[in-house]
């Protein structure tokens, strides 16, 4: 049972955020810009330090650990603005994740590249293995970012707005890919602005506003919460939801 609990206090960007994630869950984090969502991921992955509170993984505290140690524990992440290694090919980029991030063992370069090939098939970049990164389109670069994180064989995957900039078709494809990832047993925490994703794949949603938690629970409940609508979703969305609900039967309560 992998249980990730966080309690923050006193950090300006985040205050009193407390939640936990169970194994196999998909937790969606939503909220207006500047609410602290990326900061939250930065704290978990070790790029930012907590000023108060704790992050626990598998019953040990990981707050304050260097990023590479956290990575080795099985936590992988992507960045909102993708950060590939420009002078390497798609395959080499992905292989980096396998090379350095796997909890057990230090692979050698060519084993890592073989594993990278498998991961690339999974995300749909198989044919573009040898491409230099700079030749990829934005959606493909996002896939690469995910591939690299997946190559680490993580137990927890932190995704920062992977859907940003994708059109409806690409979002569907990405959703499919994420479902595959979840099925392979990886726990996912994702930040998104695209509600379709939250509804489509998340088991739970957490709403942040000004660094504080606003609401938490199953997506259907959270997205109808008046506080959330007021702070973030907006009246139009709420009305659209109501209209959609009238046209089809209510989903059975969770």
């Amino acid at each position, binding site marked *: 049972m992998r249980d990730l609990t966080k309690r923050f206090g006193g950090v300006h960007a985040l205050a009193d955020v407390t939640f936990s994630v169970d194994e196999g869950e998909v937790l969606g984090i939503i909220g207006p810009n500047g609410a602290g969502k990326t900061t939250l991921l930065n704290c978990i992955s070790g790029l930012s330090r907590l000023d108060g509170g704790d992050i626990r993984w598998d019953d040990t505290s990981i707050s304050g650990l260097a990023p*590479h140690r956290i990575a080795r524990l099985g936590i*992988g992440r992507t960045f909102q603005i993708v*950060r590939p*290694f420009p002078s390497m090919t798609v395959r080499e980029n992905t292989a980096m994740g396998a090379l*350095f*991030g796997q909890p057990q063992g230090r692979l050698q370069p060519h084993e890592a590249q073989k594993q990278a090939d498998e991961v690339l098939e999974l995300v749909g970049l198989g044919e573009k293995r040898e491409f230099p990164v700079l030749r990829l389109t934005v959606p493909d670069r996002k896939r690469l970012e995910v591939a690299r994180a997946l190559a*680490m064989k993580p137990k927890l995957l932190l995704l920062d707005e992977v859907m940003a900039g994708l059109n409806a078709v690409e979002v569907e494809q990405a959703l499919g890919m994420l479902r595959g990832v979840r099925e392979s047993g990886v726990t996912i925490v994702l930040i998104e602005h695209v509600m379709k994703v939250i509804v489509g794949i998340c088991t739970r949603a957490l709403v942040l506003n000004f660094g504080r938690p606003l609401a938490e629970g199953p997506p259907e409940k959270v997205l109808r919460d008046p506080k959330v609508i007021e702070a973030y979703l907006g009246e139009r969305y709420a009305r659209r939801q109501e209209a959609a609900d009238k046209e089809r039967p209510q989903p059975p309560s969770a």
Partner: protein
Amino acid sequence: MIARVRTMPLTWRRTAMAVIAIALAVVLLAPLTSTDVAQQAGLPLITDKLWFRIATTVAMFVTLASAWNIIGGLTGYASFGNVAFFGLGAYGTGVLVSSLRVPFAIALFAAPLTAAAFALLVGIPLLRLRGHYFAVATLGVGVAVGEVVNNVGALGASNGLFPPIIRSDLLFFYLMLGAAAIAVLSTRIILKSRFGYGLLAIRENEEAAGVIGVNTTFYKVSAFVIAAALTGLAGGIFAQWNSFINQENVFPVTYNVEMILMAVLGGAGTLLGPVAGAIVLELIIQTLAGGGSASVYSQIGLGVLLAVCVIFIPRGVIDFFGGRSRLSLRYLRSTLRETSA
């Protein structure tokens, strides 16, 4: 910005390798004509004193440039003070042979060790800095260490040290060549290894490297220490070869820039770039110097060379040999456009 390991087109490659093989053979064997044995057998003297001096200096700079490449080219941390390691290596060996009468063969081991130890010491705080800060901080190291050494009596202060003279152009040439070989070999091993990939990752995107599991501090410091050790080795050999060391000749600030320019000109981040750059540039410098490399005109020449190279060929000459671009007006103009305001 910096070229990665590129592969040349096959025909180029074969020709280049043949040329290099021949050149290497000449360089390795020709000096033997200067031995007594060869002379007595009537072989022509191909390599005279001047040849040895220049060739040994070239080998020295190949070592320095390749060493710098490890921290500057591969890892992306452009150190401006590697001359400190050269000097420390020189003094490390120099003190042992002159004051303590330790045989050179043993004292030489102290050179890389001294340099590496110092690199470990200053590397840990300094490598937390990036860009400008790291560059000038290391520049400061280079200058400061030289200054301190110049003031310490036990190290000869401003008088310098005088290792007992070993007269053998041949020995020092092969030693320096050996150091160069070790440097290039080390680079090759690193480039193909997991360690090398880690360094590249740090160079390309340090934060991303961290979150995928690269222990950036350890890797950076290791690269720095390795570079220092190689640089120090060259210094140790120099100390005995020159039979005299003081602040001026083992901590010259211009060495910093020369080794960087050689690596960058040849192609920072590549295996053979620094080698090519060192050979070409040092030969140019030696020609400009006409015998005295401290002469004012060679300094001006170096300055102009620096300016020209930096402005027009920032990616290095290897760019051309990779077949990617050809030296043309268009290439120069596009480079200028990329980097100008």
